């Protein structure tokens, strides 16, 4: 690869990361708007999350007297780690220089780091809600992470790589073949994504009930730019899982070169795929009630089971070919 194309590659990688960060609030706002329409409400504009973030960044930060340095540092670490996790995903194109570090294990690790600090921050102020939220988050993640890794291993075994770009490219080259292992892994990963991003039926992103919260309970004590970063990180995570599902399982349309036309097509394809995915999410959130907290393990066990089935069906049905 020439120096020039390498330079433009890095530039594109940065652009892609900026796009990721800037688009995340839009996806959250869009899903909210869709849900409002499905409930026969007019709903706030899909751009509302941008206004909220702007408002929060301009507000004074209040920190509880009992809070330690962890509480102050956590928003930056959580946001930073989530952003780095996002950087490892192929968004518009698969051929970026960052593809070398686009490893799934790394991504899961960054997300785990973010979650670790989120839970610590929840417990830091000593409020009962933060502690409850942290304990629930850990309950969910302890079960979600193995399921996620299992789903990822299924992909990795097919593509002989844990590199996300390579998997995308591999799926593109293989063409549209119905693979039982991928179907199972997709279902497992979708359930994990719902749990990890705090959506119904595991958590309710719109609730004001402090006793039922998971994610919101951990960030109850945050205000101002700290809260903005936490909210933004949550929106990033939602987009991250969305992109993971659409670009790894259905990578068609993603740019395989840096040509402007290909990139534009990649953006259009991504938007269309995310639109479809968000509609599925909005509909399911509208028709489902939230599960009782102790059902969450069953839900995630199902995710794990599906992922294991994916792995098995790969071994039994596909590995010989």
């Amino acid at each position, binding site marked *: 690869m020439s120096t020039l194309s390498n330079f433009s590659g890095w530039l594109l990688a940065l652009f892609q990361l900026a796009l990721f960060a800037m688009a995340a609030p839009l996806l959250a706002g869009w899903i909210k708007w869709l849900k409002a329409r499905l409930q*026969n409400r007019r709903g706030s504009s899909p751009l509302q999350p941008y206004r909220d973030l702007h408002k929060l960044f301009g507000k004074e930060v209040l920190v509880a007297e009992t809070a330690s340095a962890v509480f102050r540092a956590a928003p930056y670490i959580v946001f930073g780690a989530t952003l780095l996790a996002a950087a490892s995903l192929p968004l518009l194109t698969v051929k970026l220089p960052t593809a070398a570090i686009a490893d799934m294990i790394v991504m899961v690790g960054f997300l785990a780091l973010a979650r670790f600090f989120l839970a610590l921050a929840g417990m830091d102020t000593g409020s009962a809600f933060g502690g409850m939220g942290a304990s629930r988050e850990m309950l969910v993640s302890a079960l979600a992470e193995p399921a996620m890794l299992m789903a990822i291993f299924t992909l990795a075994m097919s593509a002989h790589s844990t590199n996300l770009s390579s998997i995308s490219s591999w799926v593109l080259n293989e063409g549209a073949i119905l693979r039982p292992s991928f179907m199972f892994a997709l279902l497992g990963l979708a359930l994990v994504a719902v749990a990890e991003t705090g959506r119904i039926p595991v958590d309710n992103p719109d609730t004001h009930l402090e006793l039922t919260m998971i994610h919101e309970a951990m960030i109850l004590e945050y205000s101002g730019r700290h809260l903005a970063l936490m909210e933004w990180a949550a929106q990033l995570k939602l987009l991250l899982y969305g992109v993971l599902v659409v670009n790894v399982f259905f990578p068609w349309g993603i740019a395989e070169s840096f040509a402007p036309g290909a990139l534009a097509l990649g953006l259009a394809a991504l938007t269309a795929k995310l639109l479809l995915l968000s509609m599925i999410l909005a509909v399911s959130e509208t028709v489902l*009630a*939230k599960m*009782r907290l102790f059902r969450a393990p069953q839900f995630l066990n199902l995710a794990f089971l599906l992922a294991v089935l994916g792995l098995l069906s790969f071994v039994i049905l596909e590995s010989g070919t």
Partner: protein
Amino acid sequence: MSRFDWLSELLARFEDEHILVRRGWARRLAPAHLLQIDAEDWGKAAAEAATFGCRWAGLWGEHLEEEIQVNACLVFKGDYLVLRTEVPAGEPLLPSHTPHFPGADRLERHAQDLLGLAFGDHPDERRWTRHLAWQEDEYPLRRDFPVQGHAGGETPPDGEYPFRAVLGSGVYEIPVGPVHAGIIEPGHFRFSAVGERVIRLEQHLGYVHKGIEKIAVGRDAEGVVRLAGRISGDSTVAHAWAACQALERACGVQPPERADFLRALFCERERVANHLGDIGAICNDVGFAFALQQFHRLREIWSRRSGERFGHRMMMDRLVPGGVAVDLDRGAAETLRTDHQALRTELERLYDILTDHPSLEDRLLGTGRLSAETARALGCTGYVGKASGQPCDIRHHSPYAPYQRLEVRPAVREEGDVMARMQVRMEEILESLRLMDELLALLPGGEVRAPFHHPGKACEGLGMVDGWRGEILTYVRLDAEGRLAHFFPRDPSWFTWPALERIQLGNIVPDFPVCNKSVNGSYSGGDL
């Protein structure tokens, strides 16, 4: 079955226990019977009444001259019996009813805080209504306490309430409130939990104590009814009606029949509006926002119609002593009937969705069970009682005008869980719609307001109305000039709040909001 055919049997039992009934009045608090007994027999009488199967419906006291008069209300087969006794103000000792009727707990502690009554064998002597707004040795309902209170500046925060601690490894406490995340009233909840399982819930209410009983003193009848309409905003019609009833019975005023019908119409409208809101809110508390939006839309349409037809969205101040303040014109009846039909059509579809929704069922079925025994022991009425097999509905069991002319069918369930409390509400909405259609069909003509006269001597009266939360009991006493001497409104929440403490036991912490919403006690109605 004739009224009070059981009373002679109870009196015989009193006699066996050497409980001396000093005097009895059948008319003075009609339709209730009034019995005067000695203070030392107070506890024994409650024990007898409890074994007899009475429901305990309230306790209030009044500082007269040298003595404090205490009244307790019992209900059996829809008949009301008031026990009365007097204790010297200097030494106001009285046996407690709580060992026999657990529902008496908070009302006795309320009387202890406000009147200085001391209940000898009360299992819980902690303060209840009293926070830190007045001194330990001051009793606001005593005659020497000024209505405007003592200017003590800002009330200090009440952080010293002695909650009962639960000890054991892994037990932790979660303090919630008094300020909550939603726009609701203030109240403190203290959970003791192991993991997510609640092993004890204790409430601390009284944050919206307004001194209703004290500021009512000296008002005229109209002023009292206005005040009653502000005890609990969501029950403004029912509380105002109970106050009107008590005043009218005290003074022997007969409101026109048309006024009775309109009062019932307002009261049923209030029931429908609140039940609609509650069903939506219950669903929302388990993350099913669709139902919230739909039911709140229906409620909003309903309230707007109330505002348009009766001049107030919640129909506050539409009831006045002697009748009602607004009439219904001929065209309005037709509009309302069309509304009822439209609501029925919409509800049919929504009920289909709610009753056949596995993920909703999963959350509501079996959650927050209140056993029939507990509901009976606490004296729960309304949807909380009905969902736990207590068919108590005074519109049916001791009908007052105009319900004698209608056949009210109480919705009763046995399960006692959140789902049952929601289903009772669903059925009550349909029943109310039916009743309102009948009310409109039978609506007599004529005046809507009779002149309110005071008989020129001291008098007292008792009002009982089935509000949307359950039975409201209101006592009034007027002095010789027609001014209010004592006012006591007893909201059904006095008995459903303690029920919530028991409902939550064994349930998990995140299920509390939905359990709470299914009970939906009034903070303001009980804090007085």
